[in-house]
C-alpha cells in the first residue's frame, strides 16, 4: 500500500472553530488531492496541489484552504467549520497526470471522519 497517512482519523468540533487536517506521504509523489465524500455525492475534489506551494481549487473549495510547504505534507484547513462540512475527508496522491501508466493512479489515504456540531 502507498504510504499515506491522515491525521486525525476522527474529529468532532463545534461550529465556528478552525480545523486543520493533515495528509502525509512517504512516496515523494508530486500531486496531492483533498476530497470529501458524502452520501449521494460520491467523492468531490476540494483542492489539489501540483508541487510545493502550488495549489488549485477543485469543485467544492468554498470554506476550505490548503497549504503545501513540503512535498510530503498537504494540509486542509476549515477556517470556520460549519455543519455542512461534516463529512469524510480523503487525501490522495499521484505521481503523474499522464494516463496510460501506473504512475497515473491516485492512491488514497484511510480518511478522516469530521463531525461539526
Amino acid at each position, binding site marked *: 500500500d502507498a504510504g499515506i497517512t491522515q491525521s486525525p482519523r476522527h474529529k468532532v468540533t463545534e461550529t465556528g472553530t478552525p480545523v486543520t487536517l493533515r495528509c502525509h506521504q512517504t512516496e515523494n509523489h508530486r500531486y496531492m488531492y483533498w476530497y470529501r465524500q458524502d452520501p449521494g455525492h460520491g467523492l468531490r475534489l476540494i483542492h489539489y496541489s501540483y508541487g510545493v506551494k502550488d495549489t488549485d481549487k477543485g469543485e467544492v473549495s468554498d470554506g476550505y484552504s490548503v497549504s503545501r510547504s513540503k512535498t510530503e505534507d498537504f494540509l486542509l484547513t476549515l477556517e470556520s467549520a460549519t455543519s455542512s462540512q461534516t463529512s469524510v475527508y480523503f487525501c490522495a496522491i499521484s505521481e503523474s497526470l499522464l494516463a496510460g501508466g501506473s504512475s*497515473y493512479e*491516485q492512491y488514497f489515504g484511510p480518511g478522516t471522519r469530521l463531525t461539526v456540531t
Partner: protein
Amino acid sequence: LAKTTQPISMDSYEGQEVNITCSHNNIATNDYITWYQQFPSQGPRFIIQGYKTKVTNEVASLFIPADRKSSTLSLPRVSLSDTAVYYCLVTTSGTYKYIFGTGTRLKVLA
C-alpha cells in the same frame, strides 16, 4: 468532462462473473476510462484503466467498444470480499480532474 452513468446497485453470487456497465456518451478523444473500488471505511483503490478495446489485469477486465461511449468492467468469479462500491470515471490525461459519481454498489451473496 464526460458524465458517467452506471447502475446504482447489483447483486451477485459467489463464483459468478459480474459485469458492470458504464455509459459515457460525451467522452472526448483524450479521455481514458478508469475504474476504482471502495470498501466501507476505506479510500478508493484503482482497479483498471483503458482507452479502447480490452484491457486485462490480475483483478479485472475492461471492455471498451469502438465508439467508446460505454465500457464494461468484468470481475471473474467474485467472492464475498468483492462486495464494494465500484466507480467508473472518465479521466482526461494531463489534468487533475477526477469526477467520481455515486458508483455501483455490488453485493456478493453466499
